[in-house]
């Protein structure tokens, strides 16, 4: 908690005064110089629980990802338009044959522990973490070799051109790790995964379990004189309602609110002028989707799968479940990939909500109504604490299908039980999940469609395997960006035809940030899976 908690509450102010906190309050009371950055103050970021590791080379859990922006840095990240923004790499070149990437690193940088940084650290990060990193394993098989011709240059040679490879080196997928800390150690259990050393604006100070993590200004940060704040505290608030309460009370300054809370947040923000709610326009699409188990006889025909989509009122899900902050998805490739998606494949036209049409499609597929019933579906989803969408969306979909005479047996399960049922036992008919598309279809979309014989969670559990699609996906990930769109159009068409995985809605992403900070525009200049790093803001 910072002084912000106490700035408008008489009783607390009185008590805090006795507690010696008034000094903190007075320290931030002068808000006149709103435009000039100045040093000092603390920001409190509200997050859920952090889990086992803060190292996002080893986890893709949301809380470590939010926290990583505060302590870690990468070669580049994305601005609000989705364009790449230099970070540790001041620039990069791609050879004409698309096989060599040369990153020019900023000179004379230091890690947060004061040790010097060089290209050897970048090479080490790739070499040591690739096999443990869930995204890098997609790129690494295509890496021929890496070179560090000097301390400020890092070169990657690919075996074959792969345009999506560059996305594998962004801050989220490839946060840089210090060689002097990890070299020669057991990386997955190294203590630095919970007490990290990084190149980000703040350095790790302490982790109070169950309470929060404290960071203080990194004196060696590459982008001086930033950061302006003295410290950042990430407090653990597992309950989304309590997160909202804490935001409203000014106990926290930054929050990525759950979507059902956004409308309330915006209302409160407008009424109290205490914080602003900003949308991240080009985000890593979070898409509500259905996996259909193709090994079940009833789902043999694509017409049945298409009918299931036509029967779902996706507008209602967007409006009621996501409070209007999601929109019906157009096709397999998220709209956020503006350079890659082809909008000529549009589910909203091809498979618009039409119960009568869906009924006819099922009749045609050989499933007419018999005694008011067509067939039974074992429909399942996970109900984790943050899966606010699960129950209401599942209820809407079940009601839509029941109206067609489909007998829906709905089971909403704890996350791990659901994972076991769907991905390991394959004992389901239709499974609902919300999956993130990451920064490129190669990292977050392909996993739902490409052939997969394993029982790996969150990877195509449907049994769908189409070599034609696999080949197109491989090619689309490799060719230059300008040529990718045409391939992804074919990708979208095949998915629309075969429909093994029904993409329903595409959710928006927001952050709430306290109005007591200056520099919010710069701070919120982010895209895809970017999070505020708190380096741009200062206390007004």
């Amino acid at each position, binding site marked *: 908690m910072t002084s912000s908690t106490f700035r408008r*509450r008489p009783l607390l102010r009185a008590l805090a005064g006795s507690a010696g906190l008034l000094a903190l309050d007075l320290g931030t009371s002068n808000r006149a110089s709103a435009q000039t950055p100045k040093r000092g103050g603390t920001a409190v970021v509200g997050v859920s629980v952090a889990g086992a590791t803060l190292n996002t080379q*080893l986890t893709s859990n949301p809380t470590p990802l939010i926290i990583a922006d505060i302590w870690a840095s990468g070669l580049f990240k994305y601005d609000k338009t989705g364009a790449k923004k230099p970070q540790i790499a001041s620039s990069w070149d791609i050879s004409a044959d698309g096989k060599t990437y040369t990153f020019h690193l900023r000179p004379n940088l230091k890690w947060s522990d004061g040790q010097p940084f060089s290209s050897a650290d970048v090479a080490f990060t790739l070499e040591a973490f690739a*096999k443990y990193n869930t995204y890098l394993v997609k790129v690494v098989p295509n890496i021929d070799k890496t070179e560090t011709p000097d301390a400020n240059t890092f070169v990657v040679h690919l075996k074959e051109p792969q345009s999506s490879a560059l996305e594998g080196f962004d801050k989220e997928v490839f946060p840089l790790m210090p060689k002097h800390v990890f070299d020669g150690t057991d990386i997955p*259990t190294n203590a630095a995964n919970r007490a990290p050393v990084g190149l980000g604006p703040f350095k790790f100070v302490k982790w109070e379990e169950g309470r929060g993590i404290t960071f203080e200004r990194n004196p060696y940060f590459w982008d001086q004189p930033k950061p302006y704040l003295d410290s950042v505290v990430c407090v653990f608030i597992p*309950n989304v309602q309590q997160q909202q309460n804490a935001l409203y009370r000014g106990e926290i300054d930054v929050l990525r609110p759950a979507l059902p809370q956004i409308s309330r947040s915006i209302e409160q923000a407008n009424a109290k002028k205490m914080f602003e709610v900003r949308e991240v326009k080009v985000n890593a699409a979070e898409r509500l989707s259905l996996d259909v188990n193709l090994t079940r006889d009833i789902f043999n025909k694509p017409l049945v799968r298409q009918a299931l989509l036509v029967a779902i009122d996706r507008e209602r899900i967007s409006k009621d479940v996501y409070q209007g902050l999601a929109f019906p998805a157009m096709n397999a490739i998220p709209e956020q990939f503006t350079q890659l998606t082809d909008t000529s494949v549009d589910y909203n036209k091809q498979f618009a909500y039409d119960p009568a049409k869906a009924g006819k499609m099922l009749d045609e597929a050989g499933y007419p109504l018999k005694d008011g019933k067509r067939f039974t579906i074992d429909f399942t989803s996970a109900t984790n604490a943050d899966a606010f969408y699960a129950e209401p969306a599942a209820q809407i979909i079940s009601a839509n299908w029941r109206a067609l005479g489909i007998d829906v047996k709905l089971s909403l399960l704890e996350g791990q039980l659901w994972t076991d049922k769907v991905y390991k036992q394959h004992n389901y008919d239709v499974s609902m999940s919300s999956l993130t598309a990451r920064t490129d279809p190669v990292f977050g979309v392909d996993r739902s469609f490409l052939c997969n014989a394993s029982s790996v969670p*969150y990877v195509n559990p449907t049994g769908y395997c189409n070599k034609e699609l696999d080949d197109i996906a491989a090619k689309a990930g490799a060719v230059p960006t300008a040529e990718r769109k045409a391939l992804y159009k074919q990708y979208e068409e095949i998915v629309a035809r075969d429909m093994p995985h029904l993409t329903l809605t595409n959710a928006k992403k927001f952050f709430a940030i306290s109005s007591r900070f200056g520099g919010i525009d710069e701070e919120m200049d982010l895209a895809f899976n970017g999070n505020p790093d708190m380096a741009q803001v200062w206390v007004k």
Partner: protein
Amino acid sequence: MLRHIAGQLAQAVLLLLAVIVLIYCLLQLIPGDPIQAMVGDMPVPPALRAALEERFGLNLPFGHRLLAYLGHILQGDLGYSMNYRRPVFDILAERFPRTLLLAGIGYAFGITLGIAIGIHSAVAKHRGVDQAWSSLVLVGYAMPTFWVGQLLVMAFSIQLGWLPTQGMGPMISRATGIDWVLERALYLVLPVATYTILETTRVARFMRASVAETLEQGYIVTARQKGLSRHEIIMGHVVRNSILPVITVMGYSFGTAMGGAVLLETVFSYPGIGSLMVEAVRARDTQVIVGVVILVACSVVVMNIVVDLLYAWLDPRIRLSSQRR
């Protein structure tokens, strides 16, 4: 009495071992993967899985892991947390006092208020006061803990702005001494109040029934006929004789109360063993889950011994019968 307690302790140790084996087996049967929980909603790279399984012994046969764990338990070692990367004992030592503080204060307030309300209600049986208390207690008893907690937060934090919404204290503070205590006390008010409401309603119902029954006894009629004042009768005869059933309730409700802490700590983001348990189940952190179960089981055993001692102190018949044995 001592022999009785020693016997109870021996039984408790055996029971505890059985509980540990049972919980460990149940956790093995429940689907779940601690490594997947760590990685999140993306596939776990095989090398990462292999490294962590090796480090935490997850690749060993179940029987081997269970025996090794029991061996450690017998040596007083509660194991190692995969999720926190620390010995389980250290985590419990940090978290349990916080829960004990919350539950202890709530329990003390709840019992005191519950006893007072129970007596007040019973001595005015079937009159307006009794009906008012009974209705209030029933409403309080019927409300779910998390809902009461949310209501209090909305009233005292959101609307009035008097108290913090969650947590156990400020993350950054310059306070020392009494200021430090005061600062943290503010954070305890709402969770303790919620806990107190829960406990008060539970105790008040039993106390009212017990006092009402005592008031019907012949010795109370005699006391009245002897000319003792109302105060002397209630304090001297009624309370002491009515409190035994309530103490029984206190004993067994302690376990329930610890269960209540799980919900309460989740609502208030209070970092005690309740929220630890929730995190551990989510992360399938087996040794922490078993550690918490052991701790709660031990607390219940200790509480039952305290109840036995209180019985003996309050009721001479129990004391004498145990001496005769």
